[in-house]
């Protein structure tokens, strides 16, 4: 019990730390892509920049618009941040760590419905944006909130359908089970290339990242749903986006890229401690790549128009996801089908 509490606290700190350094990474990647230097004032290579930004956020005036619905205005950022942080506890961050007599499973909880739990948290997360945007009583914020909700609903469908095809193959909903299946066999990306692509596109939409960042679209809506937010409330919204990006990258790595699996590591003759430690490191390397990929796309592709976004979701991704389910089903029952004829 105590060990689990300590593990979850460490996980919370790591998540927040990664999210903080994602803001630094985003600015450095943007600078690199635009042939600039990026933040370099605070500390060596600007490494203290996230701390400076955090202090700035805390020190700013916490302004509440006079016409805002105060309770919901407070609840919005809180829901966004809480749901973003709650997802990490079902993700397998590594195998079982053995140090002497002490063993620690690097997955806080492995419920039978792990992947659905992640899905439920994502679908509750949209309330943070909707309630915050509505409560600020501002036209731009309301438009941002409405865009967010319609975008989330549309892309959740395609995301769920792309997962159905994956689950047909894995035969389990537990994230630990999905990784265990990949440890013995091949990574799911080999069996589900189309499913992975659909899931990736939907992950961009679910985290409100460019090219699908229409809820905050600064060229049309000032700041979208967080137009009226200031100080740490704004900070929570922005931070929740980076936490979501981290968790999405972790989920993508877990579902399609073997999680903490390193191919052929069992033949290298390492002790179990080193296998576990290197496995966790490899998971974080995969997560790091996908976070970079999120940023890469943001600074490469222009933003979609809203009708393009809806058309892509409903007329391209959902039919493709259904086709993918059909193909996966046919492939999985090919022996029975051959016997039939």
């Amino acid at each position, binding site marked *: 019990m105590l060990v689990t509490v300590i593990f979850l606290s460490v996980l919370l700190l790591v998540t927040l730390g990664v999210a903080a350094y994602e803001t630094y990474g985003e600015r450095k990647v943007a600078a690199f892509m635009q042939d600039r230097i990026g933040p370099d004032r605070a500390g060596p290579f600007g490494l203290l920049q996230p701390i400076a930004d955090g202090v700035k956020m805390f020190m700013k005036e916490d302004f509440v618009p006079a016409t805002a619905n105060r309770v919901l205005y407070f609840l919005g950022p809180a829901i966004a941040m809480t749901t973003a942080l709650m997802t990490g506890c079902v993700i397998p961050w590594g195998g079982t760590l053995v140090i002497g007599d002490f063993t620690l499973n690097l997955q806080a909880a492995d419920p039978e419905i792990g992947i659905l739990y992640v*899905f439920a948290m994502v679908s509750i997360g949209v309330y943070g944006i909707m309630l915050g945007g509505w409560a600020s009583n501002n036209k731009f914020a309301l438009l941002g909130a409405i865009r967010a909700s319609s975008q989330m609903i549309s892309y959740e469908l395609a995301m769920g359908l792309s997962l159905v095809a994956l689950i047909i193959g894995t035969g389990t909903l537990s994230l630990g089970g999905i990784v265990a299946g990949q440890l013995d066999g091949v990574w799911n990306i080999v069996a589900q290339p189309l499913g992975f692509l659909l899931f990736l596109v939907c992950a961009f939409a679910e985290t409100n990242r460019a090219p699908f960042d229409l809820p905050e679209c600064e060229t049309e809506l000032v700041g979208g749903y967080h137009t009226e937010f200031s100080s740490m409330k704004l900070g929570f919204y922005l931070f929740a986006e980076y936490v979501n990006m981290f968790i999405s990258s972790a989920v993508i790595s877990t579902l399609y890229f073997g999680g903490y699996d390193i191919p052929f590591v069992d033949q290298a003759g390492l002790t179990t401690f080193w296998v576990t430690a290197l496995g966790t490191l490899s998971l974080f390397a995969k997560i790091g790549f996908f976070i970079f990929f999120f940023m890469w796309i943001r600074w490469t592709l222009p933003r979609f128009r809203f009708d393009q976004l809806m058309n892509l979701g409903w007329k391209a991704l959902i039919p493709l996801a259904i086709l993918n389910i059909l193909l996966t089903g046919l492939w999985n029952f090919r022996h029975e089908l051959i016997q039939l004829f």
Partner: protein
Amino acid sequence: MQILFYLFAAVSILSALFVVAAKNPVNSVIALIVCFLSIAGHYILLNAQFLAVVHVIVYTGAIMVLFLFVIMLLNLNKSTEPQKSMATRIAAVIAGGLFLLTLLGAIKDGIGIADPDVYDGSVGLVKSVGTSLFTEYLLPFEVSSVLFLSAMIGAVMLGKKDTSPQPLSSGEGQNAADRA
């Protein structure tokens, strides 16, 4: 565990009452979301993980988002709420009273409360739900899926733009062809 049950029960009933009592429709919707989440908590207490999480995804995550979406889009509030006539109110009270009577009639001989000692903790897990849906209840399951599909197609048909050619525009097309 028992404390959790009483907590969830109290939250469910209070939030359900607040759904009806709240003046502002957005507050009503939020109370309903809290109610659904506490019902999901009840499912978890019964070890029905699958039911709980699907309940959260479908009701809390999709249906209530749509409710909230429509209320925000129409900007419903107290001032725009239409005043019901006296006849409508009386009819509503009678209908509600009849429904209450039916409910009371149904439970007057006691509702079958399951014996907690013989409760099968695996009944709400993915495997048992799936097995019973695809064996025992296969026909109702398939029929209701067809029902949902027809409802979806119906909604799409109703929402479609009328693209049949207007008499005026076809005449213009004729003229344009003549000029060419």
